[in-house]
Structure formats: C-alpha cells, structure tokens
C-alpha cells in the first residue's frame, strides 16, 4: 500500500472563478460575488449572514437546508448559487411578515414541533412548500389517483401496505385544473419525509402542518 494517496491531482492550480450576481432573498436584493463552486446554502450562510438554513449533510439527504425558490422547495446544499440569480428566494428568516410569525411558525410552537431546533428552519420551509404544492393539486405517492389507469403507477398499490385502498374517484376531474389535495396526516407524513428530525418531533410537525392546512 506504499505510495497510496488519497487522490491524485495535476499541479496546475487554476484560480477559482467568481461571478457577480444579484440575489433576491426575502424581498431584499443582495449584490454578491460568488465562487462558481459555491452552493446557495453556503452563500446564504457565509455571505448574507442568513444562517437559518442549516447544513445537516450537504448532500441533499436531510432537508435541513430547505429554502423556497420561486415558492418551490429546494435543498439549497445541492443548488449552485450561480443558478438562482434571477429567482426569488425565501428562507426561514423571510417566512413571517412584518415581524409577525408565519402561521406555520406559530403552529410549530403550539404543537412543540421542535426540540433542538436544528431541522426546524428546513421543516418550516418544506411545510410552506407542501401547502403550495397541495393547493396546486400536485399529487404525492399516497394521493388517491384519478382517473383510473392514467399513470404507470395507477394500477399498483401504495408503497404503504397499511394504507387504505385508493379511492379513484376522490380527486381531480379528468379535464381542467387539478383539484387541491387534501392534506391529511398521511399526505403530510409522505410529503415531509425529505426532512429528517433526529429529535423525533414528527408527530408535532404533522399536527402543526395539518392545523395550518385546515
């Protein structure tokens, strides 16, 4: 094993490439110069001092870094900053308005949907994304499907062996805009499963989101 190296490299050491951008975060414009290798998560935290979004894994596996880009949730650790310069970014710091808590933030407190709080900013942004996705009628794996036979998965079972059988008539007209998805507990659990919480605050998180979704 002699001479084994962690890796090999060539000696040419190109200088990092930087780009000037205007980021729109929480209704504020931030002119920044970023390294092209930089993730949105590192830019938010390191350059804008918006440290609400957390780095739990840096690999898109935990959801702690979740923020909203144009209202949709993304894992900011897998988003390069250079790719979002013309987009609208919302972090946990921008969820509430005018100093008031967002209804989700209030519900998280009421249901004690947090312990250490480290996953909480990601859970909240993710939850805000879930509310919007459901309102827009986006189905999840456990959403009752309609019309029957429409998709490749329509004939299959839910991944959840204990789930009640699908009710094909429950959702969506064949034509026209999709009907909003009702966010029951199972829907919420499914849609929130990209956000890990090692403290195990899931029951509170689900209850909090269900309350706001009502």
């Amino acid at each position: 094993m002699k001479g084994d190296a962690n890796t090999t490299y060539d000696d040419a050491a190109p200088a990092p490439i930087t780009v000037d951008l205007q980021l729109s975060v929480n209704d504020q414009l931030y002119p920044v110069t970023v390294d092209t290798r930089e993730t949105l998560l590192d830019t938010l935290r390191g350059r804008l001092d918006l440290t609400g979004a957390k780095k739990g894994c840096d690999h898109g596996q935990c959801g702690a870094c979740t923020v909203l880009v144009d209202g949709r949730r993304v894992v900011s650790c897998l988003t390069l900053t250079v790719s979002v310069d013309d987009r609208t970014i919302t972090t946990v710091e921008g969820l509430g308005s005018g100093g008031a808590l967002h209804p989700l933030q209030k519900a998280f407190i009421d249901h004690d949907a947090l312990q250490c709080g480290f996953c909480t900013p990601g859970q909240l942004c993710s939850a805000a994304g879930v509310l919007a996705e459901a309102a827009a009628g986006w189905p999840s794996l456990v959403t009752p499907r309609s019309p029957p036979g429409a998709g490749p998965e329509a004939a299959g079972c839910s991944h959840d062996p204990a789930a009640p059988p699908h009710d094909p008539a429950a959702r969506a007209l064949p034509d026209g805009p999709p009907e909003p998805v009702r966010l029951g507990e199972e829907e919420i659990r499914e849609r929130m499963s990209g956000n890990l919480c090692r403290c195990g605050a899931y029951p509170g998180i689900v209850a909090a989101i269900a309350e706001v979704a009502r």
Partner: protein
Amino acid sequence: MTVTGSRHVGSALDRVDAVEKVTGRARYAYDNAPAGLVHAVPVQATIARGEILEVDVDAILKRPGVVAAIWHGNAPRLPSADEELAVLQSRRVAYRGQYVAVVVAETLEDARNAARLLRVEYAAEEHDVELRADHPRMYRPERVNAGYATDTEDGDPDAALASAPVVVDAVYSTPAEHNNPMEPHATIAEWDGDGLTVHEPTQGASSLRASLGSLFGMPPAHVRVVSPYVGGGFGAKLKILPHVVIAALAAKQVGRPVKLAVTRRQMFAVTGYRTPTIQRVRLGAEAGGRLVAITHDVYEQTSIVAEFAEQAAVPSRMMYAAPHRRTTHRLVRLDVPTPSYMRGPGETPGMFALESAMDELAIACGVDPVELRVRNEPETDPESGLPFSSRNLVACLREGARRFGWAGRDPEPGVRRGGRLLVGTGVAASTYPAYRAPSSASARAEPDGRFTVRLAAADIGTGARTILAQIAADTLRTSPGLVVVELGDSALPSAVVAGGSMGSASWGTAVVRACEALRDRLEAAGGAVPPGGLEATADTTQEVRAQEPFARHAFGAQFAEVGVDADTGETRVLRLLGVFAAGRILNPTTARSQFIGGMTMGLSMALLEESIMDREFGDYLNHDLAQYHIAGCADVRDVQAFWVEEDDSHLNPMGSKGIGEIGIVGTAAAIANAVHHATGVRIRDLPIRMDKLVR
C-alpha cells in the same frame, strides 16, 4: 427533603426559545463568523492500520487560497493528551477515518478542494475490524461505563439454570449505530494571547473547558466554550472530540480564527457511535414464570486508542427478582473508530436482549408477557439490596395495557391478518437510573422585577432552558416570563453535562438552591432590590454527596403494534405507546416530546439503523444519511407517551427523574416482540430487516 411548591413546575409552558428556533435566529456554533476567519478541512486516513509516511504539504501550499497544511510532521506539539485526542501527534493510524492532516484556506471551497487533493502516503498493515464473541483478544475491562463493576455474580446461576424447569438461552445482537444528531459537529476556534475561545455544540461547556485546558496545558480560566444552542447530541457531543483539538491547533498555527465543520460523512469515523454488541442471555424460571436465574454476558468492541465499555448487562442486575444472577462484559480492541455514548448507553442494547428474552420466557411458560414481568417484580434492588426510592414498573405495565387495549390478547403468533399484513402486538419494560451530579448556579434580581439565572448547563433540545425558568420562578415566587435563563457558556457557573438523563435533576437542584439563597438576601434587604441588583450563588456538591442511599431508577412500559407485509416482510410500526414513571414531570409539553423522541429513535433502531463495517477496508460503508437510515416522517405514525404520577421525596427538590433516555430503552424489544407475535419469527439480531423475515 422538601419538594418545592409548584405553580409553574408541572405546567405546559411553551419552550422559551421556540421563537428563536422557528425564526432561524437561534445561533448554533457554526453560525458564527468572527472577522478574519479561515476554513479548516480535515483529511482522514484511508487505511485502517499502519503509518503515515509522508504528506505532500509543499504541493498543497501552492494551491489557491491555502494558508496551511498541518500533519504530524509540522504540527505544534501538545503537552499531553490521551491517544484519541493526540491529533496529528503521531504517524500511527489506528482506524480508517482517523484525522491525519488538516488543510486551512481562505474559503471553504478552497480548503475542501485542497484537502481532497492532499497527497498522503501510508505504509498499511493488516487490520482486524470484525467483532466476534470468540475473538482471541477479548479481555475483561477494569470497569464499564458510568463506573459500574465489569462482572457480578450472586448465588449459583449455573446450578439454578441446570435445575430450572424452564430455560431460555439465546444470543441477541445489535449492530453499530451512529448518533447522527441533525447538527454535525463544528468548531470555531480563536486564540487571543494565551486564551482560547471555542464555539462548539457541546452537551457540557464546563467539562469541555476543563478538557481543553488540560490538553493545551493551561488553566481552565484561559478557555471559554460558547454553546448556547446545540442541534441535538444524543451522547455524541458529550465529551471532547479530536476535531476540536485540530481546530484549536490550526488556529494556533495560523494565528487566525479557524472554522472547522465535520461533514456528515466524516462523522461516522470521528464522533463516536454505539458499539455493536453480542449478548447471551439465559433465564431460568419456575413453570409459572418466576425467575430463579438470570445471566447476561456481553461482547463488544473498542478502538486501539481508547477504551469505551458499554454497560449493556447492567440493567439485568436490577430489573427482576432472581436469586441467582451473573453479568459479564468483555471487550476487544479492534482497528475501528472509537465507540462512545449513544442515547441510553448500556440500557438501550442491554434491554433489547433482556426484554426479548423475557418475551421468549413468557411464551415458554404460557404466561402473559405483562403478567410475567409483574410476577418478577423485586421488593428491593436485587443488586444492592437497597430500597427503591420509588418503583412503578407495575403501574406502567397496567396503565399501558389499559390504554393500549392489551386485555384479551391472543398469544398465538402469526395468526392475525389485515389484508396483506400480519399484525401483532408486543410489550417490553424500560428503565434508566436517576442520577444527579454536583452543579453550581447563580441567581440575580434586578430592580425592575426581572431575574437572571446563570449556569453552564446545555439545552440540546431537551427544554432545559424552559424547565429551569419554571423551577426558578417557583422558588422565587415569580412568573417564568420574568426569569431569563443563561446557559451554554463555560464562563457561567460550572455545571455537569447534559448526559445520563441527569441534567434537570442536577441543574434544577443548583437553581433551586441559588434562588433560595437569593430569596434570603432579598428578605434581608427588606424585599427591595438595590439599584445594582442582588445576586446569590449555590454549589450543590455537598448536598449531592450527602444524599441518602437508595436505588433510584425511572421505569416504563412500552407497547407496540406492528404490521408485517406477508409477502415482502416489510415491517411498519402501526402504534407505539409508552407509559413512564419518572418522578414529577416538570413540563408535560417538553417531556412528552422527549419521550416520543426517544421512542422514535427506538423505532428507528428496531427497523432501520445499522452501520455496516466493511471488512476489506475497515470502514463504515453506509456513512451518510442516504445509506444510514433513520426514521423519517412517514415511518412514525402513532407514537404516544403517558406517565404515571410519582411522588418521590428521595430524589431532588423537584422530585424529578431524568427522561432523556428512557424513551428509547425497551422500544426495540417491544417492536421485535410484536414482530414475533405477528409472524412467529423471532428476530434476535437488529435491525429487523425484510431479509431476516422472508426466508
């Protein structure tokens, strides 16, 4: 001992730091950015055993932004250090993933890239990373964790087993498991003259300060540890870890503040984990289920550089009345990362074995598993002979059975179907010691009616800030809204770690005593607070040392209902219900969250968690959250926690027992027992994977 009055203690006060946490304002260690900081990225060994021959520092120093590259060849020498903490002090590699170098650069991107490219040459040696009960180098450690005796023996267990009408003799095993708090470890280290300040998520600022002081050969007063928010710990942030030393060394070397974040993948080698265990349990009983003998023999691993002996057989010493008992612990030093504390060390894997064996005994005797445990309830602690300060396991079992709907359960395994699911229920008992350790605190009154309580405690998500405000408010006869609790800073009065479920009991005692002393001063001052405020302090060393001898433990009963897919073997926990007896519950909101959090981690342990050792490379293979699975939202459906009231005056002024760990103890056994009830298959080797059920 008096139990303090309770206007606020026991009430469901919202977490006092909840607004900080839901708005993202709470500053965790890594959220700090002192001016002029540089980024450090450590490099880990790619061999499991051997020597570092050379590190190509010169080439890496030419890379953009690189400020320093440090390894054994050029690292500042530490005055003294145990082997695990003697980072960059030797050429030896004791496990794969051990730190061998660190690169410091102006930006995180530059540091990461340079660390990736750093060329390290090794002379590798044969490694041995496989735990086997019959490993020839098994040895008997002097003591096991928390200071318990390694082995115990009472009566003649072998003879009792030989003549017992019913015997259960089985081997249970649990895999290596990693704590994985959501917040990875991170350090910001900054030297100022002779003084060192570190921002570090820690479960014990005072003890980290002491460790750093002795490592760098300076008085503790020259070290400050700042840690107001901690993103979970579960034992992983209990003691000083090597990355803190690297960050401090690097900061010293480069003369600038250094920020070092351990990555999730790195954590699997360098931040501790629960040792895998192999446990043989033998139970001898009369036909009616009365135990005559318990033996519990445990085999575990530790690393070459440090000994950690998990006390897995210790709960078998006090759980049940059996006149003949033996417990043993054996360890083997392997070329593996150093195991450490993980939520309920000892009790968690140990009770999986014991409570699985009890279920097997219940079946062997044809006795209901709840009833079996009731029949074996001891009068006094079987180990010490001491009276229990309170022991309400039976009440937990009865109350749990009632709430869960246990009555009328058909014990026949593998006969209940709901669609594709085989359905079953199981029960297990839990226990955890009620420790208390010396701590100090100060309490201060301001002329405007507000109070500040200070101590170097840690709130790692437990709700310590909240319950300490409640405790102080009651003692000071004010409202919690007028009490500010400052914690998480070693500059505050010294306090014991958040570990061993002893935080509330230890810190609460100190807070009560400091507030009482302040009350006396206020009375002496005629009730008026002078313009400069009034302050009092307390140190509970004497009080804690003088506590009367009792066996102090919390107990619980956990009930599980599972559904196992008859075709795939996929197991889902349909319901989990725990009832606990843990003294007085200080805040039902935060307590429920802690119990449920512990049970959730137990569910995760039962079905998902397993760090797989790669024999070839000596590495934990599945070292990230995509491959090391912890319970996600969809895994956790119906988890409920309740408690029975306990009025125990032998504990502390609050009458509380710790609740941080007992929730996980017993959960895995309850689930495994339910899986047996559902399927007829006994899983003795965690986790309960599909391939073990479908054969």
